[in-house]
């Protein structure tokens, strides 16, 4: 791949006219080669990462095959490993976090994009960006010392008394569990939803709004019935992006989920997530099969986030391009 092909150079402005030799003398070819090597190393590292995960998880693939994903036993004594409780925990906490974060995040982004004067919108967005920079372990710290006790004393009694007949809100509550992890994760992903959705909403062409207002709709109607549907796919993209973040979230979840590989319907029950089990058990998995099962979990997590990220990016690109396309006309 590294062979020098002079015809490709012509992609750069005003480069094609000079001969290969003069370019070599000027250092252009050397610069090209060096920067190419660095760019290629990015590809190499990524390929290596996937390869490493793949070959280091061969044992459980051979031994359990697809059963790995549907069995519930995680038993280092008998050397039996099933990923279902972790996949379940990861999905449940992610869904809970989205249920909480999506309405709030989209509401806030509508305010920022449609209502707030630009100056206020930018200031608030600045704070949202700072919020996105708060590290996970800090959310975990607050989770352990604030959300967990709150869960035990306020939220659990509040939900269990009126709704305790539903399997989702059955007791007992330990403070830690699916719901706690979901709440902490929701707080963490809200900034991502707001930032991306705001951008998508801002890219909706002006004439869409003006047309709706001219036809006599209220401000809310023009926003909700015209602007939001126009940006729908992009907003979906922001949600997928948030979901991908939530799935891979490790530290905050490890600190508040309860670390129990069990599948329970109750949101107050303790659970486990893929990222959390890797964080807890990776340094101490003594058997090969044990270790490789953890790596296979890492691979699963990687694939899940990869698919979601791809989908998200696609959706965002589709909407923003649609917006600019119409707006230019």
């Amino acid at each position, binding site marked *: 791949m590294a062979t020098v092909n002079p015809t490709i150079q012509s992609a750069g402005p005003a480069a094609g006219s000079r001969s290969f030799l003069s370019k070599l003398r000027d250092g252009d070819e050397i610069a090209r080669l060096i920067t190419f090597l660095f760019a290629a190393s990015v590809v190499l590292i990524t390929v290596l990462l996937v390869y490493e995960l793949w070959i280091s998880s061969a044992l459980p693939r051979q031994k359990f095959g697809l059963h790995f994903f549907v069995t519930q036993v995680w038993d*280092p004594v008998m050397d039996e490993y099933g990923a279902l409780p972790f996949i379940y925990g990861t999905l449940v906490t992610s869904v809970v976090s989205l249920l909480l974060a999506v309405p709030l995040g989209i509401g806030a982004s509508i305010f920022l994009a449609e209502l707030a004067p630009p100056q206020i919108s930018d200031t608030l967005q600045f704070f949202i960006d700072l919020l996105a920079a708060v590290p996970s372990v800090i959310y975990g710290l607050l989770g352990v010392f604030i959300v967990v006790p709150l869960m035990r004393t306020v939220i659990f009694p509040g939900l269990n008394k009126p709704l305790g007949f539903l399997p989702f809100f059955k007791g*007992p509550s330990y403070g830690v569990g699916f719901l706690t992890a979901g709440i902490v994760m929701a707080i963490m992903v809200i900034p991502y939803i707001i930032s991306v959705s705001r951008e998508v909403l801002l890219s909706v062409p002006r004439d869409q709004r003006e047309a709706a207002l001219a036809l006599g709709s209220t401000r809310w109607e023009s926003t909700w019935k015209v602007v939001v549907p126009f940006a729908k796919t992009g907003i979906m993209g922001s949600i997928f992006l948030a979901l991908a973040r939530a799935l891979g979230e490790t530290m905050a979840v*490890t600190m508040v989920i309860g670390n*129990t590989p069990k599948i329970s319907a109750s949101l107050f029950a303790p659970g486990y997530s893929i990222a959390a089990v890797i964080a807890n*058990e990776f340094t101490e998995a*003594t058997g090969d099969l044990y270790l490789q099962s953890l790596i296979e979990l890492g691979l699963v997590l990687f694939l899940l986030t990869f698919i979601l990220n791809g989908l998200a990016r696609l959706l965002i690109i589709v909407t923003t391009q649609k917006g600019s396309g119409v707006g230019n006309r």
Partner: protein
Amino acid sequence: MGKLRIRREMNLMKRIAVLVVGVLVLGAMVWAQNPLLINGAGATFPYPMYSKWFDEYHKKFPNVQINYQSIGSGGGIKQVTEGTVDFGATDGPMNDEQLKAFQAKRGSAILHFPTVLGADVPTYNIPGVTAELSFTPESLAGIFLGKITKWNDPAIASANKGVNLPANDIVVVHRSDGSGTTYIWTDYLSKVSDEWKNKVGKSTSVNWPVGLGGKGNEGVAGLVKQTPNAFGYVELIYAVQNSMPYGRVKNSSGALIKADLASVTLAAAGAAKEMPEDFRVSITNAPGKNAYPISSFTWLLIPQKFQDAGKRDALKGFLEWMLADGQNYAEALSYAKLPKEVIEKEKRAINSIQ
């Protein structure tokens, strides 16, 4: 366009960056000369003890630093086998398979060195109950099998006459990481309950029938402290340091014994006389009228062959010190000293480290 300004700014930035990098690299290089750092990892059960020892030893011999990370016994075994740390530490002796794996990977044997004796204690946090509770082996197994779910269950209440136990659900707390504390606990439960032995077994990490997981003795103690109606097991010192209540346990002679230095030492009395050559011995449910039944030795895992002579000599020096002066720090931290016979035997074993 203020190109000149940008230029100037860039040059300044460059200079600052070069300066910072240079100073740090140089500093790190000069600094790298000094003391010998030995890395170890493993059991959280003796972590307070080791942390004290390594601190004292460093004060005494400033050119030796022993960095110990409490990542759990399972982690200690794994990392010393991989060779990523210089020594490991565990509360459950390595099994034959693990010994073989070490031999295969490192080409030499690994030695167990008992350091102190400790005990697992059942600890609880029941609002409104201040009395010291007593537990029978049956009730402990029942709670951890998920068969006893309420604090006022007859199996618990019968051993605690006069205590007003609430009808609350028991919140079982166990370790989420591979742990020697767990090994001792499950080793004990396997000895007293056939159902436990068949269903769960003993190991540094098991498939728990019920409960929440906390990381490390610290994590379990933290969870029990923060959770009303919680019940868990921790190494004695963690209960003492955190002033958490812990219960008496009925031993093999039928007496209700509270874990303390004397009762733990008594549990080791039998084993001390018949210590096997490799020091791998279990003293849970030991005979003896006043022996505490959930006691154990805890071990340092030291490879027999070292590539680095400096590290080898430093560790040998530490072991000598630990068996002599070091033992005097044990009781202040609620660990029992090693029996004399064991110390003598270990001194001989130190010589086999090459």
